[in-house]
């Protein structure tokens, strides 16, 4: 009986604390949602672990192409750089983070696909990436068919890994790790001959200080990945605003600068800035 009383009390406490936090949450939301009133914050989803695209530096600052695009877009929406909260959105959590309203939008190597479009709306695309191979600078791999029989590395569950064993080189000896860093380590030690994923991600890794000059991109264009900015389903207003911001970013050359700044020295040939709403299949 005592136990039952205690658990009832605990449940009541839990409900109380939940409603209390819910109130707090509501207030927070309406603050950040009301936009350009000044002094307000915007939450943007990025990745923390992709050099060149979205990376959290040891000192707590953020760098990368996605970060630059997000900062530019936020500026156009009326938020200065110091009013942005970058939130980590891992691949598995992106749709829910948008649906819950945890973030206003997500710029995190988010390829526009039909399945995802059922759950979220996309602005952009703002970058056309291709699946590609990162190889050692002295490697002789030049075509996708060279891969059969070779040792190849990619990330568990990634679209690139699925492409390799479904279409591109079913006979390749595919090694899968949970992150790209492990793949790069395997490439460096010679355990694999190539690492595959989007060329922008690979270029970001290869441009890191400790790997300079060791790796190059094969330039194969094995797929088309249209990176879009994810927005909560139905929020057409934000989509339109972001699209306008992206167009401005391209027309005033800030886009080109962001590309060269972030993907530097890895033989990365970027595509011209994609047209808003044009998905390259």
């Amino acid at each position, binding site marked *: 009986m005592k136990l039952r009383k205690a658990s009832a009390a605990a449940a009541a406490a839990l409900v109380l604390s939940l409603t209390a936090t819910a109130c707090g949450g509501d207030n927070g939301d309406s603050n950040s949602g009301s936009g350009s009133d000044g002094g307000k914050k915007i939450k943007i989803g990025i990745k923390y672990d992709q050099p060149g695209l979205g990376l959290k530096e040891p000192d707590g600052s953020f760098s990368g192409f996605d970060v630059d695009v997000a900062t530019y877009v936020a500026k156009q929406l009326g938020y200065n750089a110091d009013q942005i909260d970058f939130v980590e959105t891992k*691949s*598995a*959590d*992106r*749709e*829910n983070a948008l649906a819950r309203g945890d973030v206003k939008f997500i710029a995190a190597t988010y390829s526009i*696909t039909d*399945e*995802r479009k*059922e*759950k*979220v709306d996309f602005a952009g695309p703002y970058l056309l990436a291709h699946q590609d191979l990162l190889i050692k600078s002295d490697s002789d791999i030049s075509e996708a068919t060279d891969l059969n029989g070779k*040792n190849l590395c990619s990330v*568990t*569950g*990634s*679209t690139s*890994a*699925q492409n390799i*064993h*479904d279409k591109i080189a079913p006979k390749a*000896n*595919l*090694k*899968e*790790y*949970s992150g790209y860093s*492990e793949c790069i*380590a*395997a490439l460096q*030690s010679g*355990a694999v001959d190539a690492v595959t994923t989007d060329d922008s991600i690979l270029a970001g890794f290869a441009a890191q200080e400790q790997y300079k000059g060791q790796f190059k991109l094969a330039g194969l264009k094995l797929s088309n990945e249209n990176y879009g900015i994810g927005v909560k389903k139905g929020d057409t207003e934000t989509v339109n605003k972001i699209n306008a911001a992206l167009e401005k970013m391209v027309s005033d050359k800030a886009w080109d600068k962001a590309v060269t700044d972030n993907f530097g020295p890895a033989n990365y040939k970027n595509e011209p800035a994609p047209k808003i709403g044009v998905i390259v299949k």
Partner: protein
Amino acid sequence: MFDFLSDYDNPTLLGAFWMTVKLTFFSGIGSLIWGTLLAAMRVSPVPLMRGFGTAYVNIIRNIPLTVIIIFTSLGLANIFRVTMGSDDFKVQDFRLAILGFVTYTAAFVCEALRSGINTVPLGQAEAARAIGLTFSQTLRLIVLPQAFRSVIGPLANVLIALTKNTTVAAAIGVAEAAYLMKGMIENEAEVLLIGAIFAFGFVVLTLPTGLILGWLSKRLAVKR
């Protein structure tokens, strides 16, 4: 609602869970053997063996499993070129993962067994020595059989934990359930549904294990 499941054939849903079962089975057998040896070391009269057993258990069970599994691949395979008898990554990763799981789980099997050995009354071992049995005979014929019967329950817990731990093998690319789940979440944008499917799969695997072994542990326990 579930029609996307048919898009996956490398591995299929059943294939992925079958891989989970295979990982659990081989790692389970391996850790039972290695864990029993470790337990024997921990109660043996030779100080060096006792020391080794104690050190092994205390070090290994305090290393995160993910670290051990990633080490089998990045350390053993990539740097020391331990190929486990195959150049095919799929086979190699599977064997490396089992090696990692056995290394880790054996520490827990050892401790479960050692607690079982402690339930065997001292008189049993003394009687065995009195009729002239050696240490290994005492352990094999008298102590361990009674110890095993009293720790079926704890060993079932270790087995269930092992079943769930096999998901860590996705980190080095073994195509088991968690691996397929990652792929599905990447494509389908249906986190909750997919999560529920895989959670259900693991309940289907572990619940019967718990029920059957729980029943067995009641039947077989030595009544004292």
